[in-house]
């Protein structure tokens, strides 16, 4: 519709959007938790299991060669999608969480020591917070926090005092899954590098929604999840610069990641195999490749444009709702399509429950960001998030649903106003 992007045509590609909930058409506004999947991705899975399912790598027969070729082809697709210098710097893991933990174990243990510092932000998802807390505890290092201002932006002035010669790693999200804020990661990378620190970018909420170029960003590590970018559950990606992968110790030990195993010691295969122990999630990796193809067909610039206009539309409407408090920046250009809010007199869980009765799926809770909740002094928020298949009509439904929640809790709302 808007920007020459035909959202109705896109919707045709997503069979789940025909589902009825309580007899009403599904309005899915929880893509930040997990996205829906186009038919092409589902077909890819079926095709794999019905035509060429076999274990990959070193099977000298046709099915295994086909599976291996498709698996490695998906790696090349993912590499191109984020403009990685080569497929070898793409490691397939389960999800963003595992990607970050891989860095914690395979890089962190050798590179973060006593009194070293790790810098993260207050808006990090638990998956980009707890691993560093644990690493800091294990290594006697210090975990430092970059604070967030009232508008939902990183207080970058703080960087000057927070980054020191002892900073080994800065781990920061590209787009916040609560505030929607797009963080200026390129600048943070530059400042980190000046102090000799590496920088990990949690791109779980950016890679699915906007063009991302790791070489331009110059980050050292980048993590994201396939299931949030129209791919299947069970596959995530770690990108790392090649020389880092080469120097890192392995993470899990087992089949495929070895070169030579002797009784008392072993040598390792080169990356990416070094970090992919055991039988990988072959079908889902290949289907992630199909998701990347699909996103490329939509065009990531257009996806971003569509979400931008939808977010603008939603913010305009939410601004009019009495008693609604929105978290994060009001300018759509500086944020992704994730909108968190609370309502006076109606608890977020009750909002989500009432919206569900209208077949509208949003999330309520701490969104794996308890420290950020504490920062804003709320126990939970309601959160709607958009993707390429969402429409302005669905935003209208959301607003109607919010009004309904306020009606159900009429007295409570009045009392609290």
């Amino acid at each position, binding site marked *: 519709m808007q920007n020459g992007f035909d959202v109705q045509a896109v919707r045709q590609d997503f069979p789940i959007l025909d589902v009825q909930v309580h007899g009403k058409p599904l309005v899915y506004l929880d893509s930040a938790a997990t996205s829906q999947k186009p038919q092409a991705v589902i077909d890819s899975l079926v095709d794999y299991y019905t035509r060429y399912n076999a274990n990959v790598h070193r099977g000298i027969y046709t099915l295994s060669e086909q599976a291996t070729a498709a698996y490695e082809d998906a790696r090349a697709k993912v590499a191109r999608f984020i403009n990685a210098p080569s497929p070898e710097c793409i490691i397939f893991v389960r999800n963003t969480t595992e990607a970050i933990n891989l860095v914690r174990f395979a890089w962190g243990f050798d590179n973060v020591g006593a009194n070293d510092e790790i810098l993260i932000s207050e808006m990090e998802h638990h998956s980009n917070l707890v691993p560093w807390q644990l690493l800091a505890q294990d290594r006697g290092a210090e975990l430092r926090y970059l604070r967030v201002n009232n508008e939902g932006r990183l207080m970058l002035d703080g960087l000057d005092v927070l980054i020191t010669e002892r900073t080994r790693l800065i781990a920061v999200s590209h787009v916040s899954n609560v505030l929607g804020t797009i963080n200026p990661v390129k600048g943070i990378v530059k400042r980190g590098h000046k102090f000799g620190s590496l920088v990990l970018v949690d791109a779980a909420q950016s890679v699915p929604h906007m063009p991302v170029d790791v070489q331009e960003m110059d980050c050292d590590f980048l993590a994201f999840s396939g299931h949030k970018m129209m791919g299947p559950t069970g596959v995530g990606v770690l990108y790392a610069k090649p020389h880092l992968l080469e120097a890192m110790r392995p993470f899990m030990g087992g089949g495929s990641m070895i070169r030579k195993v002797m009784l008392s010691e072993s040598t390792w295969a080169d990356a990416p195999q070094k970090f992919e122990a055991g039988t990988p999630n072959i079908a889902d990796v290949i289907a992630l490749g199909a998701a990347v193809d699909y996103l490329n067909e939509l065009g990531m610039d257009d996806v971003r444009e569509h979400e931008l206009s939808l977010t603008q539309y939603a913010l305009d409407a939410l601004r009019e709702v009495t008693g609604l408090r929105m978290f994060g920046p009001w300018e759509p250009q500086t944020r992704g399509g994730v909108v968190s809010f609370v309502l006076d007199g109606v*608890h977020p869980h009750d909002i989500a429950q009432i919206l569900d009765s209208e077949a509208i799926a949003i999330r309520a809770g701490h969104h794996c960001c*308890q420290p950020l909740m504490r920062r804003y002094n709320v126990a939970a928020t309601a959160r709607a998030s958009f993707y390429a298949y969402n429409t302005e009509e669905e935003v209208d439904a959301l607003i109607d649903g919010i009004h309904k929640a306020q009606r159900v809790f009429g007295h409570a709302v009045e009392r609290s106003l």
Partner: protein
Amino acid sequence: MQLNDLYKDIILDHYESPHNRGRPPHADIEAEGSNPLCGDDVEVYVVLDGERLKEVRFDGAGCAISLAAASMMSEVLEGKTKDEVKEIGDLFKAMMHGEDVALPEEMEDLEALKGVAHFPLRVKCALLAWTTLEHGLANQDAGRRVSIEVD
């Protein structure tokens, strides 16, 4: 499942105008319960008269279900003996797990929460105050405020 099964008027009433809310000047039992995953927090205060719960009060923050359940609980348990409290609590838990239980007549308010059993994710909201009270009673001898985390 109808929304009305969950948000019955009586529940909304308790949420909007809770009974027995606030900390009493003195309490024999002080327990706080939290569900960090929901962000819900409830405090339960009991003034004892021997084996009997002379007064039950609560405070806290949470969703409609957890606060209404706390309010109702404080009402129905006032004046009950500890044994009776245990009995009623077991009945209530059974009801929350979908069992068909017969509540004593004077507790029919609690019936209003029956619909919660159809919303598995909200059951823990309805149970938060009860679990907290139970924990307080079990640790009566601690001589201080006790706390419990549930999820």
